[in-house]
């Protein structure tokens, strides 16, 4: 047997694998479980934000109940915008459901004029367009690669059809182009929507020059049109809405995680207590030989710390591996978003090692306080 430092934590842990492995395993599984649950739950709002992230570089303003108001609104935006505008135009929309992680989710096929379409695609980080852009007035559409994956569509397939509940159009609108970008996009020509779809309402699109200015513009529009028959569409609303929508879910998640941490800590405390009881002869002998309580406590804490940290690291690594597998097998084929390195998920696991360390310290301190080495060497305890 390879000689080691006798009282080093590694010596005890390696030579007592029957005790070490279950402790490490329980911590690892707990971390894996919490990290997995939090990452998957977080993927819901993350997916929804990802779906609507195409709206980040643009402000939408639409009249409510009175389509004739659009020119007035256009004038207000043009004259009062607090930042310089890079582009101000109009668009129209057709509803088309996509599949989100929580089921069918509303999305829009945006009708744009040719020049606007090119500008829009540039703003959406499109690296390549397979096929072509929809011709003006024709039943044609371009979609982005994530949408193609989500709806399992390819070039030449129908995006909208007269008998399609999820995406209606009086004509079959075929896919003539697929844009390579991470954004979710469905575009058709403005003229086609104008000729075939109700309501007959133009939505104003206002592009600022920088993301910061875009945010200023969006927040200005919210204030400017507050209380009016106007709908303002901005990306931060999606963020705020998803935060509100999932706040109860997160409260439930916190209760679940809290309960889990409590149960695991109690379980670990009991396990550590059992293992320490099995080591009373060792502690008694060392104390009789002259080791101080402080030294023994320090040693036990080093061992516990090693087990807890090891279990946590294994848990985090396995969680990452499992999430990668989940992402590639379940999420990516439908273009659902999942952050495999979600910092919140890893933060949620931190209470596990901390609480176990606290419980282990209290357990050992309590034991050592009442401990009499004489009782051990006289075999009163064994």
């Amino acid at each position: 047997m390879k000689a080691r430092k006798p009282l080093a934590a590694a010596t005890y842990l390696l030579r007592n694998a029957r005790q070490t492995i279950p402790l490490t395993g329980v911590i690892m599984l707990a971390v894996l479980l919490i990290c997995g649950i939090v990452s998957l739950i977080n993927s819901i709002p993350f997916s929804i934000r990802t779906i609507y992230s195409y709206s980040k570089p643009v402000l939408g303003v639409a009249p409510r109940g009175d389509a004739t108001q659009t020119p007035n609104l256009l004038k207000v935006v043009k004259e009062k915008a607090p930042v310089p505008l890079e582009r101000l135009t109009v668009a129209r929309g057709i509803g088309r459901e996509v599949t989100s992680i929580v089921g069918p989710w509303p999305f829009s096929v945006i009708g744009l004029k040719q020049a606007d379409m090119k500008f829009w695609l540039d703003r959406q980080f499109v690296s390549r367009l397979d096929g072509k852009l929809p011709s003006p007035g024709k039943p044609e559409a371009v979609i982005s690669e994530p949408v193609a994956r989500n709806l399992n569509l390819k070039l030449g397939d129908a995006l909208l059809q007269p008998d399609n509940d999820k995406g209606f159009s009086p004509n079959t609108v075929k896919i003539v182009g697929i844009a390579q970008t991470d954004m979710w996009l469905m575009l058709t020509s403005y003229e086609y929507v104008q000729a075939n779809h109700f309501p007959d309402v133009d939505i104003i699109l206002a592009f600022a020059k920088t993301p910061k200015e875009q945010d200023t513009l969006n927040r200005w529009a919210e204030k400017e049109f507050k209380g009016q028959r106007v709908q303002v569409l901005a990306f931060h609303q999606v963020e705020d809405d998803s935060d509100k929508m999932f706040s109860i879910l997160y409260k439930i998640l916190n209760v679940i995680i809290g309960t889990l941490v409590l149960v695991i800590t109690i379980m670990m405390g009991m396990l550590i207590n059992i293992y320490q009881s099995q080591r009373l002869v060792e502690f008694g002998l060392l104390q009789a030989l002259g080791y101080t309580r402080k030294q023994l406590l320090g040693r036990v804490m080093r061992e516990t710390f090693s087990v807890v940290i090891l279990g946590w690291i294994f848990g985090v690594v396995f969680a990452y591996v499992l999430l990668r597998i989940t992402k590639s097998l379940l999420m990516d084929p439908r273009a659902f978003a999942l952050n495999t390195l979600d910092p919140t998920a890893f933060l949620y696991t931190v209470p596990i090692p901390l609480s176990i360390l606290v419980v282990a310290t209290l357990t050992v301190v309590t034991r050592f306080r009442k401990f009499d080495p004489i009782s051990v060497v006289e075999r009163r305890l064994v």
Partner: protein
Amino acid sequence: MIVAKAASLTYHDHGKQVYACRDVDLEVHPGEFLGILGPSGSGKSSLLYLLSGLKIPTHGSVSYDSVNLASLPEDQRSRLRLNEFGFVFQQPYLLGYLTALENVLVAVPGQPLRNEASNLLEKLGLREKSHRLPHELSGGERQRVCVARALLGQPKVVFADEPTAALDHHNGLQVVELLNLNRGEGSLVMVTHDPSMLEKADRIVHLVDGVVSEK
């Protein structure tokens, strides 16, 4: 030098005060082999605990190199035991997950005494078994490992509490012989109920009912 002056150790048994040791006056001289002989229950082990600082007398005093052990905080008494004393107990207690050599090294933490420990095990006839775990050793071999552990670092005093109790007579004599031969200039204080184990002792005190009856 260890000096016990009118040292008593009492404990309570069903509300009654019982003396484990009573008014013991005793000196342990440097380098001597002191035997403490007495029947079972005579307070031999209690006296050993008093002399080694494992227990503090309820009356009287025990001092080591003129320092009253009762005046030292617990941590300092522990350090004194670790640095100056060696112990062999009745049962050959070893840490089950450490090899014989590693068990010996436990006695002197933080010092590179691997060679000394190996030499001690060799002297005690355990050279070939120094890398074995305790469960791979016989009872006699385990107690010899305990002897090596007590002797490592050349302690000033080795306390042996019935070190032969768990061994047959032959193995017992061998253990005492090894302790006596390898203690160097240190003192050896050995407690036993078997007079034949103290043939090599420089001095023997008899203990009856916690009282030193004969020196």
